[in-house]
C-alpha cells in the first residue's frame, strides 16, 4: 500500500482549491493546505477568531502576539485583509459566505455525516469549537484524514459511531490512500493514490466504495 505523507495529502487537497475562493482551514493538518495552493491562484483564508485574509507566518522575532489564527499560530495579514469580532465571524461562516472548509475528522459516513469533536471516552472533557458552525454554513466541506485509525479500524463508515458534528454535510474526503466523493449512492471513488488498488482500499473501508 502506498500512503501519502501529510505533506503530500495537503498538496493534493490544495489542487482542488479554486482561484478566488474564500476558504476556512480547520485546526491541525488542514492549516498546511495553504502552503501548497498552486502559484497564480489568489485564495482568501478566513480564521474564525476574526480575520479574513490570513497571510504567511511572520519572520521570527516579528510575531504580533495578538495576531493569530484559529490554531493559535502567529500569522500576518494578506493584502485586502479585514479584522472583525466573533459574532460577525460566525455570521460569515453560518450565513454561507465562505466557499470551502477543509476539516479533519475522526469518522465520515457514506451519507456525509461527520464526527470530529468527541469520542466515546467520557473521561475526556468535550470541546467543540467552531466545527459545528462550519459544517452547517459552508457549502463545500472537504475532509482530510488518515484512511484508518492507528489500530487498523476504519474511519470511512456506513454510520458514524462517535457523536456527530454535522449531518450529511461532507462533499469529499481526502485520505492517504484515496480521494472519495460523497454522492447520493454513498462513497464514490475519485482517485486512488498511485500504486494502490481499489480492492486494497475497499478492504480498509467499512462502507462500500462505488466506482
Amino acid at each position, binding site marked *: 500500500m502506498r500512503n501519502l505523507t501529510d505533506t503530500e495529502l495537503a498538496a493534493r487537497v490544495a489542487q482542488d482549491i479554486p482561484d478566488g475562493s474564500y476558504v476556512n482551514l480547520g485546526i491541525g493538518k488542514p492549516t498546511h493546505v495553504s502552503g501548497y495552493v498552486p502559484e497564480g491562484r489568489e485564495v482568501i483564508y478566513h480564521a474564525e477568531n476574526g480575520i479574513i485574509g490570513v497571510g504567511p507566518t511572520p519572520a521570527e522575532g516579528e510575531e504580533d502576539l*495578538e495576531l493569530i489564527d484559529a490554531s493559535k499560530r502567529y500569522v500576518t495579514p494578506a493584502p485586502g485583509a479585514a479584522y472583525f469580532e466573533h459574532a460577525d465571524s460566525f455570521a460569515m461562516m*453560518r450565513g454561507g459566505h465562505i466557499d470551502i472548509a477543509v476539516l479533519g475528522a475522526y469518522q465520515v459516513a457514506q451519507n456525509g455525516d461527520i464526527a470530529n469533536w468527541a469520542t466515546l471516552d467520557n473521561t475526556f472533557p468535550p470541546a*467543540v469549537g467552531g466545527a459545528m458552525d462550519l459544517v452547517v454554513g459552508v457549502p463545500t466541506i472537504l475532509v482530510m484524514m488518515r484512511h484508518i485509525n492507528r489500530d487498523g479500524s476504519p474511519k470511512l463508515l456506513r454510520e458514524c459511531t462517535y457523536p456527530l458534528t454535522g449531518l450529511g454535510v461532507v462533499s469529499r474526503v481526502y485520505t492517504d490512500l484515496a480521494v472519495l466523493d460523497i454522492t447520493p449512492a454513498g462513497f464514490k471513488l475519485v482517485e486512488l493514490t498511485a500504486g494502490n488498488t481499489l480492492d486494497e482500499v475497499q478492504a480498509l473501508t467499512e462502507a462500500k466504495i462505488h466506482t
Partner: protein
Amino acid sequence: MDKRLPDLASAVAPITDGSVIMIGGFGSSGIPFGLIDALLEQGARGLTVISNNAGAQETGIAKLLKEGRLAKVVCSYPRSPGSIWFERRYEAGEIELEVVPQGTLAERIRAAGAGIGGFLTPTGYGTLLAEGKETRVIDGRGYVMESPLHADFALLRAENGDKWGNLNYHATARNFNPVMACAARHSIAEVRHLSDEPIDPERVVTPGIFVHSVVEYGVRP
C-alpha cells in the same frame, strides 16, 4: 462623564461571589490578563465564567481554576494544549461544564445584548449538543432554538479607550470582546492606551454606552 478608574482593583471591586462573568479572548489573544489577576486578588468565588477557552498552563482563567474560584464554565473549547487546571477540576467533578458551539456561543451572547429572546440556528441540529432543545425544520433545514446568554460582568481587553468608555481593538484581539461588552450588566475594560482625547467616531468599535469602566493596563502579552 468619565468612566476611567485609577487601577485594576477598583475596576473589579463590584464583583461579588456567585457572579456570572464573561471574559473576552481567544487563545492567548485579547484576554484581559490584568483584570483576571485583579479578580484573583479580589477573592470572589463560586463564579460562573463564560469564555471561549478555559485557560492554559498557569495563565488567565487557568489561575482562577487553580485557586478554586469557579463553580461553572461555559465554553466552546475548554480543552486546549496545556489546559491542565481545567482538566484537573473537571475530572475531579469540581466544576460544572456547559459546552456550546463557538458560533452559538457568540450568537447567544449577542442575543442577550440585543434584546433578542431566542433564535433558530442550524448549528448542532441532530447532534448531542441539541439534545433536549426545541428544534424545527424550515424549508427542509433543521434548526435548534437557542436562548440568550446574559452576564453580570464582562471583563474585556482593548487597545484604545477614552473617558466615555469608547473602545477599539488590535488585530485578532477583538474576538469576543465587543459582543460580550453588550451582554453584561456591568462591563469593565482594560486598555493598552487610555486617552484624554476621544477616539475618532469612525474608529470606535465598541461605543461607550456598553462600557461601565475603563482602566489602563499597558502590557501587551
